[in-house]
């Protein structure tokens, strides 16, 4: 295998990229200034030394604890539970949530051999205890396993006297009803909100 083939194979292993895109990226790197590949290579080589999970919430950070966990202005009585570190960035971009986060690192899935012990569930209980959390927002994805995980945590947390809530499901803001898929419309109908009289 040539060096180019090797590079294409490695790039094609990245999520969301097929072989065609991998070939295009490899050729772009070859055509670009040497420094482009050099900088990228240096960043990749030191990636794991510089970026690591926050010891508190589990999101990726260079400083430990991360900027959210060390921000004293955040509401430290509410915690939002997500599946993956990148979910934190999505919620942060909304600018709507000002509490803390907790990354589980996956979802409960008995068929895949993933139980509470494989996730950062014990760390969640510890933080709730230590921080005196009042409300837990469950922001796992609306999949079967995401729902299983949320329901499992609700059952466990309610015995600890913590309020639990789940992200609402429904139509996207700014979207047209005619373009929504039937399942989304059905869930929106079930989760409709009433106007206060």
């Amino acid at each position: 295998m040539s060096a180019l083939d090797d590079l294409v194979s490695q790039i094609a292993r990245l999520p969301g990229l097929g072989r065609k895109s991998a070939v295009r990226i490899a050729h772009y790197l070859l055509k670009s200034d040497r420094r482009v590949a050099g900088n990228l290579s240096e960043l990749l080589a030191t990636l794991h030394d510089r970026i690591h999970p926050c010891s508190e919430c589990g999101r990726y950070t260079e400083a430990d604890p991360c900027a959210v966990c060390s921000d004293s202005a955040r509401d430290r009585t509410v915690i939002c539970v997500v599946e993956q570190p990148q979910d934190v960035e999505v919620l942060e971009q909304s600018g709507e949530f000002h509490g803390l986060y907790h990354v589980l690192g996956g979802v409960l899935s008995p068929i895949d051999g993933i139980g509470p012990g494989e996730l950062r569930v014990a760390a969640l209980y510890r933080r709730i205890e230590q921080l005196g959390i009042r409300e837990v927002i469950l922001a796992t994805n609306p999949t079967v396993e995401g729902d299983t995980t949320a329901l499992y945590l609700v059952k466990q947390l309610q015995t600890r006297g913590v309020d639990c809530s789940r992200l609402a499901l429904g139509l996207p803001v700014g979207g047209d009803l005619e373009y929504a898929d039937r399942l989304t419309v059905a869930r929106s109908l079930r989760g409709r909100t009433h106007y206060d009289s």
Partner: protein
Amino acid sequence: MGFSQIRYYQFRNIADGVLAFDAKQIFFVGDNGQGKTNLLESFYILCYGSTFRTNRDSLLIRSGMSDCGLTGTAVTDDSGELAIRFALQNSLKSIHVNGSPVQDRKDLIHNLPCIVFCHDDIDFVSGPPERRRWFFNQTLSLYDELFIDVLRRYTRILKNRNVAVREENGDMIDVLDEQLAHTGRELQVQREHAVERFSATFEQLYHHISGFDEPLRVRYRPSWRNLDSVESVVKELRTRRSTDFTMGTTTSGPHRDRFRFEMNGKEFTETASTGQLRLISLILRVAQARFFSGRSGRKPVLLLDDVMLELDPTRRKRFFDALPDYDQAVFTFLPDEQFSSLAGDDTLLYRVKAGHAYGESGSASTRSV
């Protein structure tokens, strides 16, 4: 109006090339083993992206070849002209509609809903209970995309619960019981309502086609009987948990539901003759087609594979008359069958021999290509 043409490439024993199908009725006539069912199967594959004959897609590829393809052009009332391409290459299946790849076969169903009548349908009557469940799941899925989602969701929760049961993981089972009860109840309610309406159609058709006076009804017997709330189902699952541990699986739920064919309150299929079983299976499909048309307001594509062979002339006529209005219907016949009386004003007849289809003219009701 259904398919106007299909291009064949290394598909089973069918010769490579294009066949025109721009007619409301398509008749494939030929001896056994010539390729009639293969041609009929190609319509089904382009409608659903899979075959009704086997679980092994590799059997669709002509012997000695490594890939195959079908490209169909169809016209529908809802979506206009559709170019549907099915390909099997290097053991990978791909389906494209108007050039866009189809990720989930569920998205295909509503383009060109088709209903196939074939010999194996007798399993819905005399086969194991899962075949009846399969039939009614298909009946509901044809017009209700949400039902497919609920069914998939239920199956996934069930698989997770079965693993948790084998591990005797009580905390996890508590959670999965709630999900199973919630999703299972949705399935149960949909099945209850559907079977009630389906049975009325079926009973009427059975009386009309068979000519028998004794009514034959379809009855739904859910596994969770007399449990009409999620809470009561959760309680039932908890009660049965020790049995589930012993059996190593979930022993109750919609995956154990039964559908019965009842005459005078008794299961009819236990005493019915083979001819009666065959007739019931045919009527089931007619009822499915009518049920689909009634619920969706759309006309299906009907595929009828050698199914009228065992009907006497009177019942054959009644059966034919009972079919709902369709976009297109494809029939296979043996050469000595009396099929010409079934041809309408817009019928295309192909004689099939050794994988080649020859358009036939000469009859007022047929057109050659």
